[in-house]
């Protein structure tokens, strides 16, 4: 899922400073699961903002709403009838949700309330780790199911680089070397011979390098 992190409160306060009627808009999907932008976080942020402005003796309206998803027309439509009551929306959805809301409500500023970090997994309570960078042409079949694009600091496809030590990446003792993980898995699968298959020069045109990507599915279109 998409992993996001709360923005520092000072930054949010700076962003909304100029507005008097603010809607804090959460999302019930990924950002709820990673505890950055669901109903609970909407409540907390709204109260912090209220307290902050109260302390400055400033009257502001700060309302709360959490949609099922912000990356879907259907749910975003739910605020169409109220959107004009606000000078700004602070969206706690991922970058996709923020943009989709902004596109839909052209004349209302929609500001991000979280930093969208990566596509990741929930490894442990309070620990999310990156697993994929959506490169658009998956190599996992060749790498023991471990992604070198997102998990190797240098994206090397024929690793490990010379910096791998004790299974850790050269960038930090706390970061696993993706290639150590790949080798461990190939060993477990009895497929060490696969290690010597050379990964050819990758076509990155399906990655961000090819420009914004679109997925069209004729079979599901109506």
């Amino acid at each position, binding site marked *: 899922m998409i992993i996001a992190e709360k923005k520092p409160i000072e930054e949010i306060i700076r962003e909304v400073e100029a507005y008097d009627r603010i809607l804090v808009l959460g999302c019930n999907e990924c950002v709820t699961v990673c505890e950055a932008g669901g109903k609970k976080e909407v409540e907390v942020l709204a109260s912090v903002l209220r307290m902050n402005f109260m302390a400055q003796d400033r009257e502001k309206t700060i309302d709360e709403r959490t949609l099922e998803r912000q990356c879907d027309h259907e749910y975003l439509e739910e605020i169409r009838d109220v959107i004009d009551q606000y000078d700004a929306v602070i969206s706690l959805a991922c970058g996709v949700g923020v943009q989709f809301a902004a596109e839909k409500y052209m004349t209302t500023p929609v500001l991000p309330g979280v930093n969208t970090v990566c596509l990741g997994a929930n490894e442990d309570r309070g620990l999310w780790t990156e697993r994929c960078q959506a490169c658009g042409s998956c190599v996992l079949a060749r790498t023991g199911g471990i992604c070198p694009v997102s998990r190797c*600091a*240098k*994206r*090397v*496809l*024929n*690793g*490990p*680089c*010379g*910096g*791998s*030590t*004790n*299974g850790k990446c*050269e*960038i930090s003792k706390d970061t696993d*070397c993706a290639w*150590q993980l790949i*080798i461990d898995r190939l060993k477990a699968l009895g497929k*060490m011979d696969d*290690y*010597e298959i*050379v*990964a*050819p*020069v*990758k076509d*990155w045109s399906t990655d961000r390098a090819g420009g914004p990507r679109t997925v069209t599915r004729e079979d599901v279109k109506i």
Partner: protein
Amino acid sequence: MSEYVSDSRLERVLKVGHLGVTSECGPPRGSDPEEIKKKGMLIKDYVDAVNVTDNQTAMTRMSSLAACVHLKLLGIEPVLQMVTRDRNRVALQSDILGAASFDISNMLCLSGDHQSFGDCAQGQNVHDLDSMQLVQTVRYMRDEGKFLGGDDIKRPPRLFVGAAANPFADPFEIRVPRLAKKIACGAEFIQTQCIYNVDKFKEWMRRASDRGLTEKVFIMAGMTPMKSVGMAKYMKNKVPGMDVPDEIIQRLAGVEKKHQAQEGIQICVEHIQELKEVPGIAGFHIMAIEWEEKVPEIVEKSGLYPRPEV
């Protein structure tokens, strides 16, 4: 002679069967060429070629290509080091052609240290290709006379192509398969990471030779003299992928501080002499980091001087 793929002196020395000797120079962190020229002149007659590092440890420096040209103009044969960290395939191929236009004849393909170690830790890295794919790219440009995109190159580059190997990085069991992979990609010579654990290195060489890899590639053993016990401890504890046995540290610690540098050189010379006897060793890559003035002494004491005429 037709069996040569380039005009590289290093290639000739190795192919004739002499032990090759290379060293390295880091370009300056400024635009004054005198520094690199001075370093080059110190070692000119003692080595077959001089590697020029490419923004090593991710610190921004004069470009490796420009520094190579300065050396070349002094009659010193450069080995152009290229890392894949900073440039995409367009820029890399373009620099390869640029180097070839100056008849630079050797290239070493690397991925490069991560930018977080350098002076631009906030920068993007590129890694469009990895080091093995860069080897494939140069070989394709040279042997097929084509760009990666498939178009013909007018006057393709003639480069002797090398790669690095670290016999000590983890996991040890893939060190030889990884060498095999680099050779499969087209590496013609290999310069290794600094060797301090000679026994472990010999084990790696034995395994490489059992697989017939030493027949396919020229392996140059990487040597870096220790300046002090402090440096040895730093290398052991702080430099990723470095294997410094305790004996080395004890030996350096056992001599007075002012004699430690000499002891470091002595250790280096002993290691070279020991490794000269190891089957499959094609030469030595002496990386005396910011200590180039000691390279002649090491080369002489190791019996590698004078360099052969080829």
